[in-house]
């Protein structure tokens, strides 16, 4: 097996064992109802994580996604509820704004040659602050189009429902996988994460690709913001605080190397599902408290970071000096 597949295989195995154990304990967890909710509840996280996967594969990190989700929610709520825009128009505006925002971050990262974490940190402050300046309260969204989308679902046998946003997430994952593995853009993203010097010598348009990566991440975060607003029917500036950490965790647990170069969009799906499983299990159990989620995610994150270190260090080309950075 390719070594890059090993962490993903580990995740998949962990997921199925954990799921099987959960089902043994709570047979209800196998129902389509639970599975449907699984997808619906994690849709915004999943969509965000797809964008994060691209960023991390390219060797960067995007701390601004949670704030972009919050900002998008507020922007849409204000456009729809206060200014009377049609939701579709509001969605288009939100995606456009996010695209510009991501492009600005990408330009800064590439041309000022600064670490992505500090640039996207500024982006996080900007988006969160911007949302809070527009409004500090939760703005409800009431529009028949929202009801239409909310009613849009496939009824699954066994009483489960596949909601519109759940399906949207699956579409985004499939689109993301196609983009990553079957387009030149995707190969450039991997190239940047593998070795930016080689990449540019091999003719990869580094500047353009960097900008596109952060645009993609911000626009998917905006899409996640749209999904979140459908999910909660409101826009709130402090929505989705900390989602960037969940997204990063899902990406890493899904087998993407945090230092870049290796990873799979569909692996991130498994990662998101594993996080969702932890949450669902804790809800089913009833006696476990919610904070166990964070601890379990932290432990999983640690396990996968060390696992990647072992797998990739063992076969990395020997360095001249072990002390060399």
């Amino acid at each position, binding site marked *: 097996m390719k070594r890059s597949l090993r962490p993903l295989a580990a995740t998949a195995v962990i997921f199925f064992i954990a799921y099987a154990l959960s089902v043994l304990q709570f047979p209800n967890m196998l129902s389509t109802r639970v599975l449907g909710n699984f997808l619906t509840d994690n849709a915004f996280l999943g969509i965000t994580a797809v964008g994060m996967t691209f960023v991390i594969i390219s060797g960067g990190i995007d701390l601004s996604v949670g704030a972009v989700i919050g900002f998008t929610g507020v922007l849409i709520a204000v456009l729809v509820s206060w200014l009377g825009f049609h939701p579709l128009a509001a969605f288009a505006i939100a995606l456009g704004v996010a695209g510009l925002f991501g492009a600005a971050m990408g330009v800064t990262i590439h041309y000022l040659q*600064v670490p992505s974490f500090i640039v996207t940190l500024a982006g996080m402050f900007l988006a969160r602050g911007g949302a809070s300046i527009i409004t500090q309260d939760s703005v409800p969204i009431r529009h028949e189009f929202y009801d239409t989308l909310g009613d849009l679902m496939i009824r699954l046998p066994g009483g489960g429902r596949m909601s519109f946003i759940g399906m949207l997430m699956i579409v985004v994952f499939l689109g993301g996988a196609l983009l990553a593995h079957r387009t030149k853009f995707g190969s450039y993203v991997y190239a940047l994460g593998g070795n930016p010097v080689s990449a540019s010598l091999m003719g990869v348009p580094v500047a353009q690709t960097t900008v596109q990566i952060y645009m993609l991440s911000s626009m998917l975060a905006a899409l996640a913001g749209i999904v979140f607003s459908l999910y909660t029917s409101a826009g709130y500036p402090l929505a989705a605080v900390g989602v960037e950490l969940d997204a990063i965790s899902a990406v890493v647990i899904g087998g993407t190397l945090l230092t870049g170069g290796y990873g799979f969009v569909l692996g991130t799906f498994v990662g998101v599902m594993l996080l969702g499983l932890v949450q669902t299990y804790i809800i089913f159990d009833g006696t476990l*408290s919610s904070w166990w989620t964070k601890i379990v995610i932290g432990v999983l994150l640690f396990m996968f970071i060390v696992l990647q270190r072992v797998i990739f260090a063992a076969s990395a080309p020997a360095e001249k000096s072990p002390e060399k950075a």
Partner: protein
Amino acid sequence: MRRVPFERLANPQLLALTGVLLLNWLLFPNFFNVTWQDGRFFGSIIDVLNRGAPVAILAVGMTGVIATKGVDLSVGAIMAVCGAVAATMVVAGYPAPIAVGAALLAGLACGLWNGFLVAVLDIQPIVATLVLMVAGRGIAQLITEGSIVTFNDPVLIFIGTGSFLGFPMAAVIAVALMVSVTLLVRRSAIGLFVQAIGVNRAAAALAGIRSRMLLMLVYGLSGLCAAIAGIVVAADIRGADANNSGLWLELDAILAVVIGGTSLLGGRFSIPMAVVGALIIQAMNTGILVSGFPPEFNLVVKAGMIILILLIQSPYAALPFRRRLVTTSKATAK
């Protein structure tokens, strides 16, 4: 050829602090008014010192980490853990000194864990400290069992709200920590070695400097500082809030260090200037508050500050000043 380094022209951090304070004074003429009441000073400027203390304390530890070319994202979560430890222990009836000692040990342990991942397992700092950033709050909630643990222990409360010679205790702790850590690193060779491994780890190894112990030390110190900040914050609100204690403060601390002139690429550092950086951030926060803007405006201002600093430090900003330098360094590059 005479070229005075930019930092030496004037101290930009102190100039910036003065500027921000003057701006506050313009917006709010009573800004510098200090009154004496109940044996302590009161006033906006004292408030800046008091509220800036947690970030200043974090910045003391963060400076060392960043000087080694690292970063510690977990300090906010460590604050929550240590606040929770101190609070639950005094609530359980332990005397305050023991509770504080346990909290400090918890912080040190968290820091050493980060140091272990970075120095021994050789994991990138941003990745290594992410683990505790994610798990830390869960651990804190585990300790507090999800609730905000409030306490009435007078000794512990004194740490957060008391005063010493009229100055708020938090600020006194921050200054004492800044002075003692600065003395420690400057009077010993630690500061020199930290800079050396930050500037050139390969050369440091050849010069006989073992970087592992040093990395353990700086991450341990960062954890310890986070513990102190966590105790101060918990004592201030008389309770441990695992969800919100120290939330995003790691980012403020990083920003304070960067404002203080320490490069994210490691090397030369200044702990006092990082503390000044923390005060600049707080002075702006306070200014925004007293002049009636919504507090969220802070975030936008901070974003602006980061962008400004990145522009100042970017290779392009330096071009007009350093053209000669750039051409010579190109020549030596093979």
